[in-house]
């Protein structure tokens, strides 16, 4: 920490000291952690089944939901203050690192090759090898070089060091963290992040959210276990880009379709639904067919021509139910379609209204002389695909690799330094390491053994375990 006393602190030095403080960094990290936790209490806006969050939160979660929405917790991770906290953490990381890495770098650059003998003698590992001469120094340096030490020599004194970079592991880790933060923020760039469900009916072509291409569902297959649990979903998908069929692939759970940075996952499905019926208009008594037509239940027409006759749809209940105040529909999906129709045509002076139950759900005695008889039709299933795109992922992975490299440097490598000086036939060798003193001792023993000067290396009293 900065201990320099300044007569007058300018704004920028105040800011520097603020961000260089570990306490400040810890407070920022704690704030981010608390916010992230609050963000998980209720589902975030992109996961709610409503387009109007302002109405959804109070309605679903009551007053708490309203407060939650008003304070912006419902889109926590994209709110300006959460992003600001992330950026403050980034600044803090950079300044804390600079504050420490620059002095470290400079002090490592300025190391003396030949410190005072007493300095070597006070090293935690210190070996005085008697009966040595200059050739012993040469051999030792040669051996150290073979062991990948960088050796600098000054007469009969030398200094050797290895893995200086491990001292910078923590700062490499910080660089990785900053890359991860930038990768996470990149999701906020328009077009970089998409996560959205789309429904595609069999035979339908639907625009893929956030992209310029379309997906067509050629066939949807679902298989069940005997107990009714789904066993297998599969969408035979075709990607249509610029009017061309570019990819044909089956989308199965855990095997998404990948195209231009987008991934389409099998996520959901709707049960088969009535789409069209081929109908025959017949005269009840004579069983004579008067005409044929096809009725599309997703696009109900007001009238259909059947030969010389017209079938007029007067009312249509896609999901029929008999409510308190008469017939009504539960939804817009044709789960239980019922129609009120009348047949007009030659010889019909006064058309009669009659009910039509396309799926034969009910048999009613009706006055009308005519009936509609289905002779074919089409059921469609609808697949639910999850459209996912995240350009930030490679950046986050890249950052993670850098973090990992930093961690490996911190935990598995040591900065080892060995000094040697020849004084009156005694080779004084001292060693220092950033950690793993036992390993350093073994190293020293091996080095001396290799040059034919076996010694017992022990730690000075002052030395660490």
């Amino acid at each position: 920490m900065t201990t320099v006393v300044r007569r007058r602190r300018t704004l920028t030095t105040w800011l520097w000291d603020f961000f260089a403080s570990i306490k400040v960094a810890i407070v920022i990290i704690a704030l981010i952690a608390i916010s992230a936790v609050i963000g998980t209490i209720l589902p975030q806006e992109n996961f709610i089944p409503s387009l109007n969050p302002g109405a959804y939160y109070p309605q679903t979660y009551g007053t708490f939901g309203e407060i939650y929405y008003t304070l912006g917790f419902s889109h926590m991770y994209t709110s300006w203050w959460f992003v600001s906290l992330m950026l403050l953490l980034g600044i803090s990381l950079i300044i804390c690192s600079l504050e420490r890495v620059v002095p470290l770098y400079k002090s490592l650059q300025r190391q003396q090759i030949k410190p005072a003998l007493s300095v070597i003698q006070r090293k935690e590992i210190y070996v005085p090898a008697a009966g040595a001469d200059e050739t012993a120094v040469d051999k030792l340096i040669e051996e150290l070089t073979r062991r990948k030490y960088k050796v600098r020599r000054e007469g009969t004194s030398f200094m050797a060091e290895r893995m200086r970079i491990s001292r910078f592991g923590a700062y490499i880790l910080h660089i990785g963290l900053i890359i991860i933060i930038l990768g996470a923020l990149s999701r906020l760039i328009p077009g970089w992040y998409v996560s959205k469900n789309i429904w595609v009916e069999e035979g339908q072509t639907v625009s893929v959210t956030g992209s310029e291409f379309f997906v067509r569902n050629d066939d949807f297959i679902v298989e069940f276990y005997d107990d009714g649990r789904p066993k297998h979903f599969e969408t035979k998908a075709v990607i249509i880009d610029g009017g061309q069929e570019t990819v044909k692939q089956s989308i199965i759970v855990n095997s998404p379709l990948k195209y231009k940075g987008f991934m389409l996952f099998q996520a959901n499905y709707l049960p088969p639904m009535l789409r069209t019926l081929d109908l025959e208009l017949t005269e009840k008594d004579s069983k004579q067919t008067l005409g044929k037509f096809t009725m599309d239940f997703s696009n109900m027409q007001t009238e259909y021509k059947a030969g010389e006759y017209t079938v007029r749809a007067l009312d249509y209940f896609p999901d029929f139910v008999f409510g308190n105040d008469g017939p009504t529909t539960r939804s817009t999906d044709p789960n239980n379609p019922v129609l009120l129709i009348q047949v007009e045509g030659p010889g019909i002076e006064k058309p009669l209204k009659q009910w039509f139950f396309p799926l034969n759900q009910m048999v009613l005695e009706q006055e009308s002389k005519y009936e509609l008889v289905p002779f074919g039709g089409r059921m469609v299933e609808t697949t639910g695909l999850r459209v996912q795109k995240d350009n930030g992922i490679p950046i986050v992975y890249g950052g993670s690799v850098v973090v990992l490299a930093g961690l490996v440097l911190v935990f598995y490598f040591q900065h080892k330094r060995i000094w040697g000086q020849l004084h009156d036939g005694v080779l004084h060798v001292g060693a220092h390491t950033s950690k793993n003193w036992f390993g350093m001792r073994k190293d020293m023993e091996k080095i001396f053994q290799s040059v034919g000067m076996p010694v017992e290396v022990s730690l000075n009293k002052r030395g660490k375990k």
Partner: protein
Amino acid sequence: MASQSKVGRAVTVTILLLASAGIIFALLSFNQSDENVSQPQVGQAAPNFSLTNTDEKKMSLQELRGKVVVVNFWGTWCDPCREEMPRIQLMYEKYKDNGVVVVGVNIGESRVTAKGFADRLGLTFPIVLDHDRSVTLNQYKIGPIPTSFFIDKQGVVRYIYTGPMSSGYLETKIQTLLSQP
């Protein structure tokens, strides 16, 4: 600790803060463009739409300027919508000659269904069909239905009501808007 000069530190801090401010500003302006399509608020101009009614005629909100307009979003599957319809019809009949129009926006249903419903309930005010739900979802961002927008003679949204309206509520709001220029 003379690790870095004062100037160096000042420059570093300034650059980092400016970069962060830049990132925040950029992100906020990106998000702003997404949020342009939020539900119209009281005091804002009502977004114009043009849809066909149950008689297959084009109708736009624009052409009703100068009248008090109640835009009611509904569906035949929605019980509360059905519940308030007779009251809306009543108020429409009472005030239509004074320059009040009710526009029922049917959400995503077929003409047959909407027309059948209107005939059964004896609704005479215009009902338009938002077949692909774009007006409902993208322009007006409707959540729960029924939702009604009261638009004054200048085309400005003055009241928004979610849920079935009482006759009293309808009448006071219509009278208030009628009494204003």
